[in-house]
């Protein structure tokens, strides 16, 4: 049934709202990883989008070379990319600790270009198909809209992962170590905690989240070498709006901006590509530390 609302069919409205929520889920997962990495390593990880893409490619390789399907990819891709992150941190980023933010930003930006370049060289720019797993094919008619099962799964699963990460950081002992080490790593280390190891694992975990988002995205957006490059600028805007390094800020802002973007597509489609940056400019003017940031 279609009930016009402000002359807009509800089917279209809810359809865009769902798309917005899905994009929001990806924004939240990616910006969450960025926030964790920035909070702990003080590094603006420009390689995040490239590692999100690598996550999707790992899923593709696991399926086509190893015969391992979606559910295995969901488990293995974050671990494989996380291990790659551990190697990147140990061999490169660790050497930059104590230097200006700019060095980490340049290094990770360079890494992103190299990783994307290599994949583009072998796979071109067009997308490789990745099938929705059998269990999540089809959809449900909710009366006011049609909900594809896979999209519902992406939203619910992302929410679970986001809140599990929030819980681990804000409510557990390990999370207390992480928060304390963000403030004063030297003192936390002097309490007997191996902070350098914790930093390495945090980077691995953060990029593992990006890979997880990549696997989730593969059946919706296909697997493409530039899939991360297109996304990452918006994700950085999300991080800035939420407040650099804020965990809850990343989650709430990620979903919120996805939805706002979706609604803009319904009400004023021309602005849908820029609305996030307009919001970023306004937030920076009014609250430079971001909506959930502690200090400017």
């Amino acid at each position, binding site marked *: 049934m279609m009930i016009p609302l402000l002359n807009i069919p509800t089917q279209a409205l809810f359809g865009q709202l769902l798309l917005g929520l899905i994009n929001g889920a990806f924004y939240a997962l990616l910006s969450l990883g960025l926030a964790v990495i920035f909070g702990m390593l003080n590094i603006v990880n420009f390689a995040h989008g490239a590692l999100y893409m690598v996550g999707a490619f790992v899923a593709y390789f696991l399926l086509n070379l190893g015969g391992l399907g979606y559910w295995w990819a969901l488990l293995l891709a974050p671990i494989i990319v996380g291990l790659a992150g551990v190697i990147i941190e140990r061999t490169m980023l660790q050497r930059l600790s104590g230097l200006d933010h700019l060095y980490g930003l340049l290094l990770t930006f360079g890494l992103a270009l190299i990783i994307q370049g290599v994949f583009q060289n072998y796979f071109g720019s067009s997308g490789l198909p990745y099938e929705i797993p059998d269990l999540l094919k089809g959809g449900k008619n909710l009366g006011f809209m049609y909900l594809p099962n896979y999209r519902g799964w992406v939203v619910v699963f992302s929410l679970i992962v986001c809140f599990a990460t929030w819980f681990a950081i804000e409510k557990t*002992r390990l999370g*207390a*170590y992480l*928060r*304390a080490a*963000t*403030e*004063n790593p*030297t*003192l*936390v*280390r*002097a*309490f*007997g*905690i*191996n*902070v350098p190891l914790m930093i390495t694992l945090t980077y691995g975990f953060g990029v593992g989240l990006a890979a997880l988002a990549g696997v989730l995205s593969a059946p919706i957006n296909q697997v493409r070498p530039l899939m991360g490059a297109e996304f990452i600028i918006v994700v950085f805007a999300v991080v800035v709006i939420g407040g650099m390094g804020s965990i809850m800020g990343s989650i709430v802002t990620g979903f919120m901006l996805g939805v706002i973007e979706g609604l803009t597509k319904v009400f004023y489609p021309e602005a849908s590509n820029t609305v996030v940056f307009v919001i970023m400019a306004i937030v920076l003017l009014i609250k430079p530390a971001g909506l959930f940031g502690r200090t400017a």
Partner: protein
Amino acid sequence: MLDTTSRPLLEIAGLEAWYGESHILHGVDFNVRQGEVVTLLGRNGAGKTTTLKSIMGMVGKRKGSVRFEGHETIAMASDKIARLGVALCPEERGIFASLDVKENLMLPPQVKPGGLPVEQIFELFPNLKERLSSQGTKLSGGEQQMLAIGRILRTGATLLMLDEPTEGLAPVIIQQIGHTIRKLKAQGFTILLVEQNFRFASTVADRYYVMEHGQIIDSFANSELEANMDKLHEYLGV
């Protein structure tokens, strides 16, 4: 009665330390025996805090020898040194703003058996028990100091290094901290104290070392304090 013949718990010889290019410690030698309270005295900038940080492995570059319970720690990272049973309560207290009081208190992991149970820490510092869910940095200066001392008592560390624990505190809180240090000493803890306030130090210390320009220039026992008062005034410029 102190056993002055036993091997020291902490032996420091020829300790040099740098912050970047700045050479701060120029060959520090002293020792602390099991169960003693030893105080480092000296003017601002003499190298007292750097000495504690060097023992803990928190400065950029160190040379010389720091032996704890016979283990040479000069090349160890600070987390390994802490695991041997050395704990620092820093001058700036180091309370974490993003953690509540309970999380701050429980943060340092247990490194050895024999740490104080939390109930006993609350007996020493009853204020902390009432403020457990407050944000760490919302506490008063005195309460923050109690939290900074309390959290290292849990860990089982046998050498406690307290850097100016009375700085900026009200007399009644200073008394409470003095009482705590005497109680800890009675329980067998070894304490290395940095103090500017030697009147406070005289109520708890067994021995003193005086530092100037990154070196130890004098030492005496608490019983010799009165006899050394004039010299001490000169050293400390008070």
